[in-house]
């Protein structure tokens, strides 16, 4: 139950929290952390909140592949969740229905309060928090807390509220979904530094929840976010084959300004293709392995400052 009063948001304590790993079975930081916590959850327990570690896609984890039939992190659509259950449904759709029963139902008052979904990317995104709604003041305050706790180390916030590009994530069954994306890390590989970064983000996130549940008031604050604008595909030939790569000047330059006229792609025979957009954008998810099949070389974003209301336990 939330209520607004003079720009204050009052929410019930966050009692039910989950940490998801293995939503993509080859993104190893989350798989490893969740498996660790399932054996011994002491590290993720806080006073007054039960945090449940959970492997969302065990079959994909077993195969060390992103998914088995279809991308679990796109599967939580209303259509899928309400489809008549049965064994002829794709594995991930069955799984989405099970997860929705355990941690949802999505959109209902019985849903989990917070779900953290752990992901890795081959892109040079560093530590990134993914926000699904600019009006989720609880999440904004948590992200502000995490960013300050990690400073001077960087942790940026990606806001995906785009009506067409927004997708139905596993974490979206919760009232407050939080995506954690840490890179660069190849699929199927576990890098210690990336693993440690993800672990410390979760630590700060759970500290915030504990403080919130104890009644701490978090005063109004501003949070800088990068709002998703559009998806840019690779140049392709008439048969749909990729004909160019991310340009060396753009490769690894996630979050840096891309200006009209800047090099964007390089064809296999060495020609440069320039960015022709109307203004400066901030690209991210540059050269993510899993997005070749989703027709995405990178997404463009614009910088925005969101205002978070004061937030306190009701």
């Amino acid at each position, binding site marked *: 139950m939330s209520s607004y009063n003079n720009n204050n948001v009052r929410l019930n304590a966050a009692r039910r929290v989950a940490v998801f790993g293995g939503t993509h079975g080859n993104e190893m930081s989350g798989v490893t952390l969740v498996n660790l916590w399932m054996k011994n959850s002491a590290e993720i327990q806080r006073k007054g909140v039960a945090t449940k570690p959970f492997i969302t896609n065990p079959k994909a984890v077993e195969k060390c592949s992103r998914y088995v039939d279809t991308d679990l992190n796109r599967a939580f659509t209303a259509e899928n969740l309400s489809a008549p259950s049965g064994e002829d449904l794709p594995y991930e759709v069955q799984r989405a229905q099970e997860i929705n029963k355990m941690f949802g139902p999505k959109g209902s008052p019985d849903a989990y309060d917070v779900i953290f979904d752990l992901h890795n990317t081959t892109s040079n995104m560093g530590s990134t928090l993914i926000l699904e709604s600019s009006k989720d003041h609880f999440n904004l305050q948590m992200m502000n807390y995490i960013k300050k706790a990690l400073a001077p180390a960087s942790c940026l916030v990606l806001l995906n509220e785009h009506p067409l590009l927004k997708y139905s994530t596993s974490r979206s069954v919760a009232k407050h979904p939080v995506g954690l994306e840490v890179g660069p890390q*190849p699929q199927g590989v576990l890098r*210690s*530094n990336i693993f440690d970064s993800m672990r410390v983000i979760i630590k700060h996130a759970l500290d915030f929840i504990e403080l919130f549940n104890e009644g701490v008031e978090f005063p109004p604050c501003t949070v800088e976010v990068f709002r998703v604008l559009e998806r840019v595909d690779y140049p392709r030939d008439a048969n749909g084959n990729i004909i160019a790569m991310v340009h060396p000047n753009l490769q690894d330059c996630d979050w840096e300004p891309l200006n009209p006229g800047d090099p964007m792609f390089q064809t296999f*025979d060495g020609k440069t293709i320039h960015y022709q957009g109307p203004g400066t954008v901030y690209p991210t998810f540059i050269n993510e*392995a899993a997005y*070749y099949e989703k027709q995405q070389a990178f997404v463009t974003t614009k910088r925005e400052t969101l205002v978070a209301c004061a937030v306190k336990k009701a």
Partner: protein
Amino acid sequence: MDGQEAVCLPKLSRVAVCGGTHGNELSGVYLVKEMMKSRKEEDNESGSQPVLVLSNPRATKKCLRYTEVDLNRCFSRDALNSPLLDIAPYEVLRSRELDALLGPKGSPYSVDLVCDLHNTTSNMGLCFIAYSDSDWISMHIFKHLKRCMPDIPMRYIHFDLPQDESYSLDSVGKHGFAMEIGPQPHGVVRSNIYTTMKCGVQHMLDWIHLFNSGRVFEGGFVDVFTLVKHLDYPRDCSTLDIIAAIHPQLQDRDFCLLNPGDPLFQTFSGETMPYNGTESLHPFFINECAYYEKGIALSLSRLRRVKIPAVCATSEQHAVIVT
């Protein structure tokens, strides 16, 4: 006089460049496709052109390392000679096709040189991986690339196996090596890595052309890293799950010297596990994704300087020494 002898070796009339032996190692996939496309457009009949091969089209289409078994382990004498079962895996069938196309391995009909293109998630720069430390052709090509591409870290890796036991596609030709370039995640093509591979292949073909035209290449030295052993990740005794990751101080430091006592792994509770060997060795394939399932966290090698003689081409079928 020592050092003035030139070894004359048969011309390299038939050369193969192979990509996509692992379907998710994309630099080689895109480079071979690009070379095939340029050839079609140029319609160039002049000079001898390399045979271009996409080794594992099914795995390439699905962007997987392999569909059933690792194609690049199918070329040992035993593997190639064993009778084919009705339900042989795709890669086993494909290995026989490739052996027929580029071999038969060990026969006089095999191609003169196979260059097999690979990528690795390890920070290895450009490596030649070969079964011999006395294949003067491969070593001269390496020396040539090192001179032409001085900004690219380049190493020559030697797996000391006799021809019968050599198991990879590059062992099908009379000469051969894998050109392994990293770091690049599987399923991704990085423009700098692709360009390095494109230049490397071009310089190789240039050298071969010069060699076949009669140029004498002076001898010299090549630093060779010979494989000594592999190390697996520490594992839980009962579940066999990995319990530690490559230590952050070792990650990305391929070919640096690993001394006894140096940090090797870091457990998930933050404890450092040191290297317990008695000999300082040079690690490579540190944290290669595809090797988790093969039980390899890193490989260790011994470095030594190998002298290579001057070489030139002969139209004879066999090597000739000329003073």
